[in-house]
């Protein structure tokens, strides 16, 4: 028998390692989904309107994207290792049910990696038109691979497509598993989130430049192309978030209770903003009466299940989930405000808002989008606990029983710290080098 303390230790170690790996990868992967679109818009504009600023942006961005794709590819690889190293109980039993979307993701990612090679190294090998075309599969495959991988996560929230007989999987139906009830809400939510992270993060970089007085056309365009993609995605995301919350209310009521900090089952529960559950009561929250019942079920007097409707060992870590959820929603509405500001000003003046407060807000938009992404991911992953596969497989039954998992976590922490610093430093040096090269390019054009 495996000693209970090995499991507890391993559970902490494995969750920490998986959390760091995924939390890191989710940002880079989002950029991998959204960045190709941003670059293609710039390159298309460059070709279409003979726009040199757009061409310079496309080339600069493709170098940046090259670095991000590479670190994204390798930080994604370790996750496929960790699926077995840390959680052999998950795929060792359910691999036959939920393996298919991973295989499809593998194919999509393969196509993405191939065309990234063609796109990045094709700038001075292919004709301009062919080069633009070679970028399209990168964008499509990026979106497809994100879709496939999220269907697997959706299945963990809403496991379908198999029967269990004496602990063994029988009659697996991989398509039913992939297209489970959680799939539409989760995939749309994540894809829009990826566009937001990409657009707001790149936009932030150019907003910083604008704040420092570089408001020439190159920087304005570098701000506008990504920021508009994100700004268009934001209102759609608020809608998609509402759709996802209704799904959770319908299929995972205990997760909803954790999201909102609903301790006791309640008729016509209010919407809770902020607050913490202390000694079995939500304290310090702003309550909008009947708000939650109305939002989640469309009925101000609907019954909302509380955490106390299940035994304590089946409740998620409520405060973390509730705070993370509010953080995500708060960041989302901040970004909605900023997007609306741009839309409103643009409609009237066909120009960026002149207020420095808009630019300052835009500087914060990138970090806010990244925080929303991380918080949303914490919400869905911790909200599902203590289950790895909702209602079927507990996380402490999925974890590896091998001794010494903690060492892996410490090494991972060290490697990722160095990786983060190195990546940011090189990207920064690239930006500086790019800027100092600009006067030469201008001189060359003029001559």
């Amino acid at each position, binding site marked *: 028998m495996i000693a209970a303390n090995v499991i507890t230790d391993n559970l902490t170690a494995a969750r920490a390692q998986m959390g760091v790996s995924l939390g890191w990868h989710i940002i880079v992967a989002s950029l991998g989904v959204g960045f190709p679109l941003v670059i293609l818009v710039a390159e298309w504009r460059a070709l279409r309107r003979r726009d040199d600023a757009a061409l310079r942006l496309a080339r600069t961005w493709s170098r940046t994207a090259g670095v991000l794709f590479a*670190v994204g590819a390798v930080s994604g690889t370790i996750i496929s290792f960790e699926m077995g190293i840390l959680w052999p109980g998950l795929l*060792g039993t359910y691999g036959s049910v939920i393996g298919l979307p991973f295989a499809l993701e593998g194919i999509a990612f393969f196509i993405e990696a191939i065309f990234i090679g063609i796109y990045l190294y094709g700038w001075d090998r292919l004709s301009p038109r062919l080069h633009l075309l070679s970028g399209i599969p990168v964008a499509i495959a990026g979106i497809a691979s994100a879709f496939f991988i999220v269907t697997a996560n959706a299945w963990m929230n809403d496991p379908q497509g198999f029967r269990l007989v004496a602990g063994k999987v029988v009659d697996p139906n991989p398509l039913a598993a992939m297209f489970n009830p959680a799939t539409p809400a989760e995939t749309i939510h994540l894809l829009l989130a990826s566009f937001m992270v990409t657009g707001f993060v790149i936009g932030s970089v150019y907003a910083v430049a604008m704040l420092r007085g570089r408001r020439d056309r190159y920087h304005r365009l570098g701000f506008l192309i990504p920021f508009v993609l994100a700004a268009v995605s934001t209102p759609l995301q608020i809608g998609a978030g509402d759709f996802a919350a209704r799904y959770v209310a319908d299929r995972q009521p205990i997760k909803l209770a954790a999201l909102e900090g609903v301790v006791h089952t309640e008729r016509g529960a209010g919407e809770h903003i902020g607050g913490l559950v202390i000694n079995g009561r939500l304290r310090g929250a702003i309550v909008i009466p009947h708000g939650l019942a109305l939002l989640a079920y469309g009925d101000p007097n609907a019954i909302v299940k509380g955490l106390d409707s299940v035994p304590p060992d089946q409740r998620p870590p409520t405060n973390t989930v509730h705070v993370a959820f509010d953080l995500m929603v708060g960041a989302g509405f901040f970004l909605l405000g900023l997007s609306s500001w741009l839309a409103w000003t643009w409609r009237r003046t066909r120009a960026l808002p002149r207020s420095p407060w808009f630019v300052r807000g835009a500087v914060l938009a990138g970090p806010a989008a990244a925080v929303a992404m991380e918080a949303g991911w914490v919400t869905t992953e911790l909200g599902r606990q203590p289950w790895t596969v909702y209602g079927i497989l507990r996380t402490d039954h999925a974890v590896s*029983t091998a001794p010494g998992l903690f060492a892996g976590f410490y090494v991972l922490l060290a490697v990722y710290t160095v990786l983060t610093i*190195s990546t940011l430093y090189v990207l920064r040096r690239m930006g500086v080098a790019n800027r100092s090269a600009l006067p030469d390019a201008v001189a060359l054009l003029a001559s």
Partner: protein
Amino acid sequence: MTAANAVLVLLWISITSYAVLAGADFGGGIWDLFSGSTSRGMRQRLRIAASIGPVWEANHVWIIFALVILWTGFPPVFAAIMSTLYIPLTLVAFGVIVRGSSFALRQAAPQLALKRAFGPGFAIASLVTPFFLGTVAGAMASGRVPPGIARGDTLLSWTGPTSLLGGVLAVAGCAYLAAVYLCVDARRDGEYDLVEVFRKRALIAGAVCALIALAGIDVLRLDAPRLYHGLLGNGLPILLASAALSSAALLLLWRRMFAFTRILSALAVVTVLWAWAVAQYPDLLVGSTTVAQAAAPAATLTALIIAVAIGSVFLVPSLALLFWMVRLPRTVDARQKVES
């Protein structure tokens, strides 16, 4: 052929593709390590970077593909391997991260001093990663991975004689393949002095591989008897083919006839891996678990085969396009002038 065997073939195609494509990318990193000082080794390092730059990310995907096929097609075997061999596999994963990101950051870094900072990470990780992958192969081949979750010894399972053999052979094989490919690439691009450098290295690495393989016969006889007998039985024709292919490749290199050396060398590695697979068949975990016992239910296997078949319709032409593009000459067009 049963669906399970078909999936096993897909798995093995992925693993062999990883070995001959990504293996050579690791080998490039190994030669980077031995290229000498910054100024003296500059041209070799540039040659290596130019050869692996456009293709390494695509080549790297084969390992992910192999893992996914394993956990979908043979879930309990995946769980057994990953949990018992988690130490070398974790080191492989870190090696992959350090190698890939160091290479990409070195390529992107605008100053030489900054580039130099990433050189060691790229080169050392390129040496270490295939070694640990080889120890995993050795653990599998010598039957040190029992079924179940983490039932094997987490230290002894991958440090036995066959694992060490596998590790050393993997490193030497990667170095050999890389030297051959780099030799051919240098010749295509008219870098004739580098052709000689890499030809010499290919011959040395090839000879080292042959010596390790010969020594390996005894190691397998003593440490992995089931595999040894399989190699002398069903695996023998393929093993002999491998010996013939590698001898032919080395002879052509020696005579400076470079035309078929790349394909012959790759096939020599492919045949070693297929000889292993045939010799071990039908066991996935030696002595305990067969292909049929570990296979997922038919519905899953069929879905997986259909998915890969549909995927191949897109993948094969895409790969062909990539390898075609790499060989195109670089043209300095007006677009580049704006920048440089």
